[in-house]
């Protein structure tokens, strides 16, 4: 047994209202530089829908992730090592910018500079790639709220699998939101595809990162990741990805997306797992067995033997303690309501989801029946095959039973708690119907509905003997030491990188006062949300008001 710790996330999809706050704050913190305009480390997709980049889930086309060879060995779906190198000069499966979307801005100055005239002046869209006028045809969430889905949704790769049963008609539709970040997989195919070995998994917390000094821009990771969560910065020529906000995690703060989530639907915590079992689990023959196989890789943090092995592996006592209090462990293993996204890619993803009951509730409510009645809800879950099969395509490689079981637990929780809230006697037959005790069901309710900040985010700080040099407390180095460099000569961003936690007013100012449409030609241009703990507003979050400037 080789115990390793993994920082993981669970998202409760029932609570997602699709407001995109997570995406926006993430972008503000991480990808508001030029070269990253089209990049959303966190994005929210409406499902059914094409996703971002378009149809990324169609692995017959994009060939991300792993597959099993006939002899049962793991192989990158894009091909073996030699093939990977032979196609390095031009990557045949790299999505074009059009699959993401061509980023744009508007020529606002025509509005402010226009003389008095009969017709309202128009700010035309300008491409941030070429600087030319462009026609906007797609974006990261073009089909938000099913907009235009009668035209496009039939291309949703997951819908195609159950297509013969689906008529995409307005009256029959269901929808929900799927926020996505990097999965920080246990068996990351991006790292396996990287010719330079620049992508690594941190031993301490499993966060997958790109070493910007080792990345050589071969852009193989972009196609290697089946979730398409590695992006190519077209200005610096380097790969970038979601960092799980590691500078925040290191000091015990949740990620920016979680911190700013309006619905409070994200949970962050540790999972202990047995690294020796990962490969075998990922090689499970049957796609539909992968969900269970991955659950078997996780270790019970209360098991004395696991605790001993963890300590032996150098995991600190407070981390083991955090693993025991982990909401992730509770949701995945105790209550078994969280499911992995696309286990069939065999990367062992570590951002899991509680599938939404709302499509079912909506249907019941529309019929005028009581949507909190156990009989009605259970019957609806059995009757509404299409949404449930769709969810199964996302979370369990098409196997309906686990999704069914989760939804019934959520339905049971609704009905059981309704009795309590209405002052009636709780009905013990309800938890019994889903194989839970009353106490368990109540605990689950607590965690899903009213858990406070420190229950939703159980994040042990990185070992803080080094606290003085943590990014967060950038007390050591004056801002002015950074920046500069020979950028003009070698292109964007060359030179010594500026530490991410150094807040620099200059950066913001540059961006806001720059004349060029595509942003300033250098990298200084961001507001730093990384230091924000949700209280007050950090300097530079909002544009300076007139009196300040």
């Amino acid at each position, binding site marked *: 047994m080789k115990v390793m710790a993994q920082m993981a996330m669970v998202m409760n999809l029932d609570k997602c209202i699709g407001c995109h706050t997570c995406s926006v704050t993430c972008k503000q913190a991480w990808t508001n530089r030029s070269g990253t305009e089209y990049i959303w480390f966190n994005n929210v997709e409406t499902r059914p829908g094409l996703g971002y980049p378009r149809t990324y889930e169609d692995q017959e086309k994009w060939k991300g992730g792993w597959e099993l060879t006939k002899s049962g060995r793991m192989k990158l779906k894009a091909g073996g090592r030699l093939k990977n190198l032979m196609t390095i000069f031009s990557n045949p499966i790299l999505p074009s910018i059009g699959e993401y979307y061509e980023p744009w801005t508007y020529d606002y100055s025509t509005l402010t500079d226009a003389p008095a005239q009969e017709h309202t002046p128009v700010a035309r869209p300008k491409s941030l790639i070429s600087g030319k006028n462009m026609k906007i045809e797609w974006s990261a969430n073009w089909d938000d709220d099913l907009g235009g889905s009668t035209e496009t949704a039939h291309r949703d790769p997951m819908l195609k699998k159950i297509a013969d049963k689906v008529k995409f008609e307005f009256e029959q539709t269901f929808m929900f939101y799927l926020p996505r970040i990097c999965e920080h997989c246990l068996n990351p195919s991006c790292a396996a595809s990287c010719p330079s070995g620049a992508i690594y998994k941190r031993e*301490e917390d499993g966060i997958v990162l790109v070493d*910007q*000094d080792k990345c050589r821009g071969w852009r193989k990771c972009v196609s290697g990741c089946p979730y398409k969560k590695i992006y190519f910065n077209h200005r610096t020529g*380097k790969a970038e990805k979601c960092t799980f906000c590691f500078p925040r995690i290191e000091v015990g703060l949740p990620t920016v997306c979680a911190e700013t989530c309006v619905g409070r639907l994200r949970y962050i915590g540790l999972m202990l797992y047995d690294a020796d079992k990962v490969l075998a689990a990922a090689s499970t023959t049957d796609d539909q067995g992968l969900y269970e196989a991955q659950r078997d890789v996780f270790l019970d943090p209360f098991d004395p033997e696991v605790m001993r092995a963890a300590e032996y592996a150098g995991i600190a006592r407070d981390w083991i303690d955090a693993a025991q209090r982990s909401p992730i462990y509770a949701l995945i293993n105790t209550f078994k309501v969280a499911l992995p996204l696309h286990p069939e890619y065999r990367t062992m993803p570590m951002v899991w989801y509680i599938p939404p009951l709302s499509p079912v509730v909506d249907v019941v409510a529309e019929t005028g029946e009581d949507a909190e009645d156990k009989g009605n809800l259970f019957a609806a879950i059995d009757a509404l095959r299409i949404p449930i099969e769709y969810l199964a395509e996302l979370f369990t490689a098409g196997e309906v039973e686990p999704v069914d079981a989760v939804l019934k637990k959520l339905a049971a929780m609704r009905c059981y708690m309704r009795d309590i809230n209405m002052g009636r006697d709780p009905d013990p037959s309800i938890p019994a119907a889903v194989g839970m005790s009353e106490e368990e069901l109540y605990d689950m309710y607590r965690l899903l509905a009213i858990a406070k900040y420190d229950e939703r985010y159980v994040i042990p700080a990185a070992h803080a003997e080094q606290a003085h*040099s943590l990014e967060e407390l950038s007390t050591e180095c004056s801002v002015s030491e950074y920046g500069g460099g020979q950028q003009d000569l070698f292109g964007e961003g060359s030179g010594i990188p500026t530490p991410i*936690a150094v807040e620099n007013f200059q950066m913001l100012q540059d961006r806001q006062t720059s004349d060029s449409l595509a942003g300033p030609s250098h990298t200084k241009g961001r507001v730093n949300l990384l230091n924000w703990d949700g209280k007050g507003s950090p300097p530079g979050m909002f544009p300076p008001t007139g009196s300040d400037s």
Partner: protein
Amino acid sequence: MNEFLFVILPYLCLTTFVVGHLWRYRYDKFGWTTRSSQLYENRLLRIGSPLFHFGMLGVVGGHIIGLLVPQSWTDWAGVSEHAYHVVAVTGGLLAGVMAVVGMAILMYRRRTVGPVFSATTRMDKVMYAFLAVVIVLGMWNTIAGSIMTIGGEYNYREGVSVWYRSFLAFHPDASLMADAPLGFQLHALVAFGLFALWPFTRLVHVFSAPVGYLTRPYIVYRSRDDAQLGSHRPRRGWDRVG
């Protein structure tokens, strides 16, 4: 004059090449990339880049054999002058044509595709100019010199190659080069110019050719750097104990 052209200048270029790479690697690891432009344009790149690169790899391989392996070795191995010539010329021609056509496509693409053009730096333009001249002169030497034998027969393995090895052994003999046809002289000189530019262009990517990928484990684990959390080093006096 010959001393300057075929001894001093090449050594200057070689020094720039070596020192330049060391400096760039130390100073600008972040800028050490291919600066791929595939995101902007794929249709032309898909043809041009593999053509150019596979051609170039052939060309580089050919040069290594032609310049570094002395004629006496191949003679000893029983390869006749004629057989060597035929293999070298056909191989060189094939690789050369691939490289030239590929390069033509890449240059056309650089110039005509808007986003690619605006991402082209001054260094790129200079680099392409040198690269194009070197390759075209090299092709000229192969076609005009070795096939059509314009200006008489010239066996570079008894001239240029010997000079090159003497140059690498720090015993340069300029006269060997001085006797070579003009085409060869120019090709060598411009190539040395390209070498001097090399460390300051995107061509540094050649030195990170990822051959290690074939043998390394798929997943890389790395410890959070013990000496440092985040991206800057602790100040002196704040080093960790133990």
